[in-house]
């Protein structure tokens, strides 16, 4: 016995199909890993080293969504969930990733993407209060010593 008959008798076709499948799925898995590897690294750099950031950001976002009460930005009132303090805290967390000094339009863009409420008026209030300061080169930073003491969420 030889040739194709021998292959059939020895389950050669099945083994060949299995081999092809193993190689195919192996390569597909490798391609998937390579595709998402940069994203995973970026996520790790952004979050995994600072898990507190993610937890606090999520907490601030959810606490904002739970309340529909708008902040009275004109009066500066708004302590409590979704208030000025919360938005300020979330902005501070965002700027830790942007590094200081940061670009104000970028901060507003990112904050809006995160769904923070009344970003513009909050930033304006922080600027007027002197908590956030504009540099002469058009970049912005938090005023020295303006770091809020303690975390209202913790």
């Amino acid at each position, binding site marked *: 016995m030889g040739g194709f008959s021998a292959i059939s008798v020895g389950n050669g076709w099945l083994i060949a199909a299995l081999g092809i499948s193993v190689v195919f799925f192996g390569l597909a898995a490798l391609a998937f890993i390579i595709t998402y590897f940069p994203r995973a690294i970026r996520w790790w750099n952004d979050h995994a080293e600072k898990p507190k950031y993610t937890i606090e950001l999520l907490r601030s976002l959810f606490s904002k969504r739970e309340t529909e009460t708008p902040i009275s930005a004109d009066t500066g009132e708004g302590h409590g969930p979704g208030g000025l303090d919360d938005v300020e805290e979330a902005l501070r967390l965002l700027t830790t990733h942007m590094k200081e000094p940061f670009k104000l339009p970028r901060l507003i863009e990112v904050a809006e993407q995160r769904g923070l409420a009344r970003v513009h008026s909050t930033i*304006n209030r922080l600027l007027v209060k002197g908590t956030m300061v504009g540099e*002469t080169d058009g970049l912005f930073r938090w005023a020295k010593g303006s770091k809020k003491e303690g975390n209202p969420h913790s």
Partner: protein
Amino acid sequence: MIPIDELKKYEILAELDPAELKFLSGMAEVTHAQEGEVLIQAGLPARTLYILQEGNLMVAFPDGRAITLHKPGGVVGWSALVSPTRYTASVTCLTDCTLITFPGSELLRLVQRNVVMGTKIMRNISKVLGRRLPFLQEEDRQRLREKR
């Protein structure tokens, strides 16, 4: 139409005499914008000059840098007076704003016809814009220098 006394309060119009202010008051209008509203988009044709009457503005330059205006009298949209009349920065309201608007083409015509008045206005606009020069692209700086 805006009262002459109101216009006189603003730095860029402070040197104008009553007759000149009367010309301007006829073309000026008050407009309101809401918090977060984009008043001016960089790169678009500049058709209006704005003077901030009340509120707060952010002027964002294409490279991501920005300045904020918090006092009445802040001027945005000066590109309406300088060829090729395209806005060089985007302007967003940080709070609800009230602004005095001047149609760029009419204002430009007035400035070109009345040299004395035009010089006063352009000199004051140049003063106001002096601190924005570092943020402008080289071609925009050149435009401003030529206009001076």
